[in-house]
């Protein structure tokens, strides 16, 4: 199958979609800020505690895994149309299926 769909006259469309994503990203960022403020107001976290937070080794590893998955989903998107075996898809997600014992 051809993996090419958009033409030069779709570049403006892509620009509009990226701009819309900026709005959606800000809505989510704003919501996180509101939640932080509410947590501070209710004395569940202290002011600056989120900024000063140092992840534990285990949590840092969790964050790295989540971050890598997000990077793979975005940076790896062009590969999705080209390398399509189940094992390639799982490898991009940092996974593999259980090996069947002979």
């Amino acid at each position: 199958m051809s993996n090419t769909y958009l033409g030069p006259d779709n570049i403006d469309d892509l620009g509009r979609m990226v701009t819309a994503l900026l709005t959606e990203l800000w809505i989510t960022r704003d919501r996180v800020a509101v939640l932080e403020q509410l947590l501070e107001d209710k004395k569940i976290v202290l002011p600056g505690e989120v900024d000063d937070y140092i992840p534990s080794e285990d949590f840092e590893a969790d964050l790295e895994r989540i971050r890598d998955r997000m990077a793979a989903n975005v940076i790896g998107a062009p590969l999705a149309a080209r390398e399509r075996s189940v094992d390639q898809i799982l490898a991009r997600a940092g996974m593999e299926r259980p090996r069947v014992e002979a």
Partner: protein
Amino acid sequence: MTRNAPVSALGQHGRAGVDMLGAMQKFASNHVRRAARQQFEASAEAPALAAGATGEDRASIMDWVDRARDVAERQSLYRLERFTQAYVALSIYEFGIPAVERSRARFAAEADSVVDDGIEVDPQLTIPDYFDCDWHLRPGGWDGYDLYGPHGLHVVKPIFALGGFAAAPVGANIGQHRLDVVAQLPRRDYRRIYEPGCGNGSTLIAIHKSFPDAELIACDLSVEQLRAARRLTDTLGIPATLRQRDAATDTREPDESVDAVVTFALHHELPHAANVALLTEMFRILKPGGDIVLSDPPPFRAIDPFHAVLLDWDTEHRAEPFFSEAGASDWGAEMTKIGFVDVKAYAIGPDSYPWVTLARKPG
């Protein structure tokens, strides 16, 4: 809107991602497609295309679709809508397989041997060459991944439940479609009902709801799909005999042994000759006076050129190698040649979907 999909068994990341894929497809199929249609219909070629194909033979119909596709592909909104469709179709596997793999422990709790107990697997079955395909862009085909059963339930179904893919319009309720198709059968006293190509068993639910006392027999080429069907029928307490068979060659059912046959979204998955062979086999196993109802996307002759271009697109872009071949065919005419009588073909939903063909074996 009421969900036509189970509560997700995926983690938050998987569930949220699947939900967003559904939202993308729904919006593109609705608003972007409507605008793309307007662009298409404003083209200089639109009036001539709206007059239809120059003949009723398959070559004339495909020539008409080719001319309409040339016009559509020049339109930016058509390309944008198709880009989104393609992105979602690919992401169902690119995003969905890791999402399911992450929950493997949840899905793998039931040993295959237990599930297989309820299936007549045929290790000697000759799988036809055409079946070697990454159907619907599914890596490795129907049996290419042991978790395709839960993948179908927790990734494909929540996205498809919103409609807006292939022939199903936005808002289409596929579960209701199955009930509506089964309801076309004219009698209520069938004792044995057969479904070739049962896939994951979703249509068996509809048949059982409409005919709770009938014995259900179903077949498929794919063992993984039969396992998914067995899990579904067991969960819902639906008695059904599931057999791995090639319904286009030999179901191994006795002559004149079933009262009715139901097919749902099957015929566009087979080459034309296999479809004719399958219909001939169904004629053999049906009792005299037995009924058959077929359901598939509408034939190109029954829809407008823009709609035909959208359906034709699936052939190359959604790994549906026989989609256009089926769209250019006339199953009612083929069934008449085989010997069926009282053949009727008509749409029972918006956008001519589902399209049903109803017929009877004389007797």
